[in-house]
């Protein structure tokens, strides 16, 4: 456990001493701040539903950037073999990189919670949907990072890893639109693979445990396959 804590500390430090974290954070806050204030000033509505959907789309775009370097960068710098010869397991390596990336996502959400505080300061927002929206975004981020770490474990190049992650995210973003083309019960199966279908209820204050389970499964499966991909090498 001490080795894992040391590894997690190293990964977190590596992430927060790189420019990626700060560029992503700054861009995220600038875009979301503009969007939040514009929506608030124009609609005067004490709700974050629109902000949640915009963060959802931003996550699809920024998570590949955050995760692309996790394992592909180690491979490019030829430090992966060195890391794997250390007294830590592949699972610990993957888990440390996963949790460090998740920490950045959590920090982004924590900073964006200022928007909710502002709504609370100036109005009377419905807190239920705000809380469920943030829980949904954290779960979505956890699932996306799982897939991103997996593609980073597969690819030898960061850009390839990011592009593969992005393609997968975009596919699972809109896959529910194609569900009606398939016969029953495959249409339901394909529709339920959609990220939008599982995230939308969270954003509007309607929480299903099956939606939470979907993102948890994504995260676990991504990490498991990333470990297998590392082990294969």
């Amino acid at each position, binding site marked *: 456990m001490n080795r894992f804590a040391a590894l997690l500390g190293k990964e977190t430090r590596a992430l927060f001493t790189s420019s990626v974290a*700060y560029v992503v954070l700054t861009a995220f806050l600038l875009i979301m701040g503009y969007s939040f204030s514009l929506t608030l000033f124009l609609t005067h509505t004490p709700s974050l539903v629109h902000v949640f959907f915009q963060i959802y789309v931003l996550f699809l775009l920024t998570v590949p950037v955050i995760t692309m370097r996790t394992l592909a960068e180690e491979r490019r710098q030829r430090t992966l073999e060195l890391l794997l010869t250390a007294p830590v397991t592949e699972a610990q390596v993957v888990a440390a990189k996963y949790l460090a990336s998740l920490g950045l996502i959590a920090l982004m959400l924590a900073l964006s919670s200022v928007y909710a505080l502002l709504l609370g300061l100036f109005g009377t927002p419905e807190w239920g949907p705000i809380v469920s929206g943030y829980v949904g975004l954290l779960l979505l981020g956890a699932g996306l990072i799982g897939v991103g770490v997996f593609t980073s474990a597969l690819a030898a190049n960061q850009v390839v890893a990011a592009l593969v992650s992005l393609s997968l995210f975009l596919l699972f973003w809109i896959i529910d639109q194609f569900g009606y083309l398939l016969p029953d019960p495959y249409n339901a199966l394909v529709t339920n693979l959609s990220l939008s279908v599982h995230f939308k209820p969270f954003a509007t204050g309607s929480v299903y445990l099956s939606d939470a*389970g*979907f993102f948890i499964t994504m995260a676990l499966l991504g990490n498991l396959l990333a470990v*297998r991909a590392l082990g294969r090498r």
Partner: protein
Amino acid sequence: MTRARLEAALGALALGAALAGAVMGAGDGANIAFFIAWCAALALLAALALRVPGQIAGPTLLRRAAGVGLVAAAVGVALLANVALYRHDVHFDLTPNRRFTAPEELRTVVAQLGGEVRLTYFYNAGDDAAWTAKDALAVLARAQPRLVLRAIDLDKEPGAAREFGVRAYNTIVVETGGRRVQVDNTVDLRQVAYAILRAQREGGQTVCFVTGHGEPLEGPGGTGHAHLSHEETLQSRAAPGEGDVVEGPPAGLDRLRLALAAFGFGYRPLTLATEAAVPAECSILAEIGPRAPWAPAEASSVAAYLGAGGRLLLALDPASPVTEPLAGLLATLALSLPPGQVIDPLNHYGTAAEKVAVPYYPPHPITDGLALTIFPAVRPIHLAPPPGGVEVAPLMASSQDSFLQGAPEAKGAMPLGVAVRGVWPGAAGEAEFRLVLFGSSGFLGNEYFPAVSNGALAVGALRWLAGDAAAPGVRPPTYSVPEIALTGGEMRAVFLLVEGVLPGSVLLAWFLVWRRRR
């Protein structure tokens, strides 16, 4: 914790939660236990999958088949696990309309019940919304012994409906103190709250709106046309009447009128000049934004009305002529209204400094719990020491930076509203009169009534005048979409915070890290 211990703990947790779910049987509790078991089992399977060797000995084809098989098995297990979870799903309703929770208005009213209130709900068993309303009422009645609920399926007990004279589904009959209020065809429980307040009110009270002085507000009896529409939002419409929006002329009084009706106040227009005296049925007299001066006889009849314990609401904006008869009436109470419009560069709505915003209030029942109030055009009120037997309480004031239009050098806070009570100077009796005077009338109109706490201020003032102290915290319906109103300064502060301070602090942290690394 070793790997084997972790796996054992996960197994024990999965087994224990599954057993607990099985013992609980069906329902949300059991499904939550199953969800915990599901999470633990999934984590255990992942941990066990890690034990499978990454490389197996044998021909290349076999090694690849084993690898593909493991991935296919993992994906298959994940899919099946999600199907199983989907079949034992649990839903938490965090929606804004809280379908299974009584609205705040009803909870507040019920919590403050002083005597027994009997509710009889003739619900439609085929209407989901009616079932929901009935369940929410049952929860409330269980917590408040003074609320006696009788829910009747109208189709099964038509005799009971005949006995009550009920002819429509989802009708609620409220009975208390020998009084009875009936609300037809509703599943909106806020209407029940207002019905209880109406039933609690002893004797009907009528607000008489003075007309005949070119009052610009299209008040009751005016020519204004308003209708209810519905605003489509991302939030679903859970109940009939919920989300209804009044569309009417911006200066009209339709929203105020509907809010007063919800609290059980009647209304009538009153042409004061044609009356010898203020009619006895007028519990409250309201003069809102006159454009022509009062006649001396009108001022005399109002003075007599107040001397006999009358209640008067005066909303006089900068365009209202406050000449001798009316000015003399106010001078009796040592009140005067200097001409001019207040400009407040510090607290105002949006970017318009003439739309004065008031964020803080001295303590008074009218302003208790109010947030921001906005006055689109307001004149100051001058207070002098009141005569004996009269209490004058300022309700609100502009900021220290405010000034009268055209005189920016004379800055200072100016009272914008006062509440007066006591015995009218020179009156024969000891009856208590009440008067509320505002230096603005626009905040009562359709356009500004829903803005933050304007509606609550208007209804609060009228309820205080009426001596209505039942559940004073209940806010009136505004028949509008809930909104946040920001002053210009607040908008700048919000923008600066989210677009300057937040990203700037991240950049600062980046700079500090970079400098430290160098």
